């Protein structure tokens, strides 16, 4: 990457941050996270007298709760940040600059990811600090769950990008992303579902959907295991979700390159 490309990338990331601040997206996320941390600090009664297994169990539950709350907040916060870029009168000026379309879209993607990463780090770091101060348990695995959350958001952001590029609508992009989250939660119970299905082809379809779509529910299990410091048997949900995200992002870039504004 030459210096002009680096300057342009930093400008795009910084612009996304500025827009997130101006639209109060950053502050909205920050306030929600702060309220959650406030509740954790002053409302929940957590102490070591409950015994170490109970504390670890609570830590795992907390990590999974943060994972779901943080992911949902991130999706709500980000959908408009991508589609707003394609507004008439704004996109033309961006496209007239000596920056490739791929670079423009990835710059916005990175900026959006950075906005969410900053907030997720605050939420997870704050919860880890409060939990540690109250219980004296400083499990590093809990902090790793923040990385899982940022990773899952990166995958879902690819879906938001593709939906925004194709459909030009923040609302539809949000609906599709939540639809995928919902589908992932159902498909995580595929063995139970398959028992209810009569034909082999429908069972294969469920299997296919499970392997193709991101496994956000299964990753929540990994988050639990990381925070309670149990070994993770399979990282398949992570890498296969990563492949899905990469493929969807590539499709978004491809469509953006061919689109007329």
């Amino acid at each position, binding site marked *: 990457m030459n*210096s002009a490309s680096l*300057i*342009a990338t*930093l400008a795009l990331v910084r612009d996304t941050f500025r827009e997130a601040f101006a639209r109060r997206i950053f502050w909205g996320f920050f306030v929600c996270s702060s309220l959650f941390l406030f509740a954790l600090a002053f409302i929940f009664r957590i102490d070591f007298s409950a015994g170490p297994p109970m504390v670890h169990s609570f830590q795992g539950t907390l990590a999974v709760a943060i994972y779901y709350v943080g992911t949902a907040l991130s999706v709500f916060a980000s959908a408009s940040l991508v589609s707003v870029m394609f507004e008439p009168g704004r996109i*033309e*000026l961006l496209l*007239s*600059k000596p*920056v490739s379309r791929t670079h423009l879209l990835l710059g916005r993607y990175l900026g959006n990811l950075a906005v969410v990463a900053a907030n997720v780090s605050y939420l997870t770091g704050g919860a880890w600090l409060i939990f540690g101060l109250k219980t004296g348990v400083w499990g590093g695995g809990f902090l790793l769950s923040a990385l899982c959350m940022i990773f899952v958001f990166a995958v879902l952001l690819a879906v938001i990008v593709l939906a925004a590029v194709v459909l030009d609508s923040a609302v539809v992009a949000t609906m599709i992303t939540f639809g995928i989250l919902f589908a992932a939660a159902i498909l995580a119970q595929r063995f139970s579902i398959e028992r209810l299905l009569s034909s082999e082809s429908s069972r294969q379809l469920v299997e296919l959907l499970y392997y193709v779509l991101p496994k956000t529910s299964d990753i929540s299990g990994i988050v639990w295991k990381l925070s309670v410091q149990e070994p993770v048997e399979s990282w398949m949900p992570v890498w296969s979700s990563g492949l899905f995200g990469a493929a969807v992002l590539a499709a978004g870039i491809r469509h953006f390159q061919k689109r007329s504004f």
Partner: protein
Amino acid sequence: MDSAIASLRPLHSACLNVSRGHFVWWLKMSAYAIQTEGLTKVFRNQWAGAELRAVDDISLSVPAGTAFGLLGPNGAGKTTFVKLLLSCCIPTAGRAMIFGEDSSRPEARRPVGYLPENHRFPTYLTGHDMLDFYGALSGMDSAARRRRIPELLHLVGLEERAHHLRLSSYSKGMLQRVGLAQALMHSPKLLVLDEPSDGVDPVGRHHIRAVLQELGKQGVTVFLNSHLLAEVEQFCTSVAIIQKGRVALSGSVEELTRGSGYRVEAVDVPEQLETELRAGARSAAQVNGSLELFFATREEANGAIDRLRAAGVAVESLGRTRSTLEDVFIRTVEQKAA
């Protein structure tokens, strides 16, 4: 402000990190700032099965260093043409080149400054920050941007106070001015302006024209897309009129507005002679006590002059008639529509 216009930086000043590669590229630049070959854009509505040829096989060349005006009625395809030129729109056929480089390549757009019509600048930015953002996208380093921004804000007449106001509180005229500053940020060699004086008061319009004229003297090619025909006539050396996506007429403003008739002006013309001369003229008018007669041919004009001289009437002035660009525009559009 005039001194600010005079002190406009020469082209390709220190604003950009001009590498050896860029310099070689600059030397190779074409004699034409803009060239299009069979540029076509067809919008298709797959549901309704309808299609619209917004730009239809336009081949146009704009020599470097000229001021070129693109005219046309609403919906003629002017803005689509500009979008195709800057690769905002993907052509159905043909191609556009900027200084000899295919405009779909990002590097080809480096020498271009663009002010779009109906722009929507990020309203959460101040004027200063907006210039900083677009300057960075054009590849300017932070030192160059810091140097350039105050110069440009002064040039476009935005007061110090306005630099730190969010764009959401700017008036339409102020947005146009800061938009022009944005287009000039990286000292472009080609300036593409879509309705630059839209919403600007007459003083502001005059000022924008002065800035553009100064840039023209420095060799910057200005491509102006405007509805204001008088503005185009005053500033541009060449124009193209497009209608229904095709070039209906193009040429130098001088050639296009040169009339085919002759005008003779005289005072104190005897009533009888005036009646006879009016009968032989294409048209006639009384202007501030003078009689102005318009003739289609030189022979008719000479005949009228002979009769006036024979009657002892002094001829005040005579010359070729000129059309305004508006006349040419309306004539062309009506002919094509017919």
